């Protein structure tokens, strides 16, 4: 009898650990493609790019160790300063306005009305347009003589603007362009709005809350996780703005739209100065890391997680 129990327990322990062993093997097999990809195309290149940043590698030449020369050059290079300024301008004014418009659009489209799906598609349409195609289109819209933008101004008897030729205006033109691509964020916010339970609004109404109060005390707090998610991805995306500037202005006029990644592209793939390009890339990484960490640090001041209430 006692012996019998012992045998069963032992067997049970053995089968339990067999399952565990099998799960460990299977788990790693399942994630293996991703894990290999992470090593080959993320971790490996990141380590390699530190090493490359200490050399004068130009693809065709033999790399020499140059110490901190590339990093020192960053501080001497006026184009680094200009492109950092341009990109910061684009991030600081572009990201918040973009997010506010996306939120406004999501609120507007979160109505139960006939034909709302058509409106949603219309708002989403510019977002699925390839960036090259829309950039070429905007090049045409911002055309000084024949463009749509100056035609709209002329309707209000306003003078024509040199949207792409005036160094003071060109960055603002890029921000205006970005307002037409709110579709992606809008869809995520819309999904967030639709998952807010109806009974919370009913309860708020019974307590006498008006529309505005319902927005501030129900909608907004429950939407902050979606807003936070969007803000994080939008910041990282905005720091890497490239295609529009490459296609439309090529960085001009007078480097006024020379954004950081466009400059990185020039150094790496037009001058083939891979050592310096790696140093430039690492500076971007550090800047984005600081911004992201700061944003995460302040997240608990404004992002509301339901789970916290249950604790």
């Amino acid at each position: 009898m006692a012996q019998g129990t012992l045998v069963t327990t032992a067997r049970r322990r053995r089968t339990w650990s067999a399952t565990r062993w099998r799960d460990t093997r299977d788990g790693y097999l399942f994630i293996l493609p991703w894990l290999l990809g992470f090593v080959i195309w993320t971790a490996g290149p990141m380590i390699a790019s530190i090493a490359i940043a200490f050399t004068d590698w130009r693809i065709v030449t033999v790399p020499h160790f140059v110490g901190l020369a590339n990093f020192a050059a960053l501080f001497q290079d006026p184009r680094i300063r200009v492109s950092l300024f341009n990109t910061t301008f684009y991030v600081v004014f572009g990201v918040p306005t973009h997010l506010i418009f996306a939120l406004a659009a999501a609120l507007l489209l979160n109505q139960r009305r006939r034909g709302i799906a058509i409106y949603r598609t219309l708002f989403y349409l510019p977002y699925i347009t390839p960036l090259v195609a829309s950039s070429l289109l905007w090049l045409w819209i911002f055309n000084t003589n024949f463009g749509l933008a100056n035609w709209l101004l002329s309707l209000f008897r306003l003078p024509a603007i040199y949207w792409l030729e005036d160094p003071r205006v060109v960055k603002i033109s890029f921000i205006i362009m970005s307002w037409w691509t709110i579709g992606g964020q809008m869809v995520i916010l819309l999904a967030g709005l639709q998952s807010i339970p109806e009974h919370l609004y009913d309860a708020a109404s019974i307590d006498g809350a008006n529309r505005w109060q319902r927005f501030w005390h129900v909608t907004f707090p429950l939407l902050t996780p979606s807003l936070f998610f969007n803000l994080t991805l939008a910041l990282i995306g905005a720091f890497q703005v490239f295609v529009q500037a490459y296609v439309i202005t090529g960085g001009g006029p007078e480097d006024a739209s020379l954004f950081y990644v466009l400059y990185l592209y020039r150094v790496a793939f037009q001058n083939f100065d891979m050592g310096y390009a790696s140093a430039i890339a690492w500076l971007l990484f550090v800047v984005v890391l600081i911004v992201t960490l700061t944003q995460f640090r302040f997240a608990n001041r404004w992002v509301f997680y339901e789970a916290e209430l249950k604790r």
Partner: protein
Amino acid sequence: MDTSPDLLVRVTGRASLEAYARSSYRALRLVLAYAVLTGCALGMALPFLWLLSTSLKVEGTEFVFPPQWLPQPVRWQNYPDALHVVPYLAYARNTLVITVAATTGTLVTASLAAFGFARVRFPGRNLLFILLLSTLMLPDAVTLVPKYILFSRLHWINTYLPLTVPAWFGGGAFNVFLLRQFFMTVPYDLDEAARIDGAGNFRIYWSVLLPLSKPALSAVAIFSIQYNWNDFLNPLIYLNQQQYFTLALGLQFFQSEYGTQWTLMMAAAVMMILPMVVLFFAAQRFFIQGIQLTGLAGR
């Protein structure tokens, strides 16, 4: 005696006035709501409408100010012409090959990894998942240079390999994350039932989870198709012989030293956008559902 409120209303006439006011207020709000919706939607569609209009104009008439919204005369011939000015069909075929190869790889390997993270218990899982999430925050630009060097050492420049092979290794952190969140919502009872029938992990992945995850898989497929169809930077770096070009690269060739052929370029752009629009229309129900259920919305 009939003493329903209806009759009282008819007798006194007061409530009906209120009802009339209420219904006209409701009608006003309805009109206002649609006016705002239509106004904003028109604003969003304006660039696209102008694109469409320009693509149908006779060369020369696009330079009329103030702009004509309705092309006079309409020139459909711009579309066939655009196919010949640049080798458009060859570019389209190249883009299609890349998109199909990369999207297939993404669906296969991202769903495998997502299943591992969502359903299989193994040591180190949480740590690796945090690692995966942190790569979401990594700017792609940082790995641009070493990746280029790696691919040029492998003699992969001017092949589609740099644009497709990486998709077969995990298919992007964002897609793994999205699918993992979705898999988490599928009840465990189904796994247990399959396990009692003797199914292993792979069997559960293939015959239980995948068939139940069509909305999330289609959302990932759409993201991947869009990304690859529209990608500009990677083809720009890895393809530098015209016969390998994608549509995104090819569109620029309507700009030349002799000036820009706006009408033909816009026709080509419309033809590049159209497949994406059709795709979005066809799959939008799955798509929004997929995003909603994955907890991307924050819950």
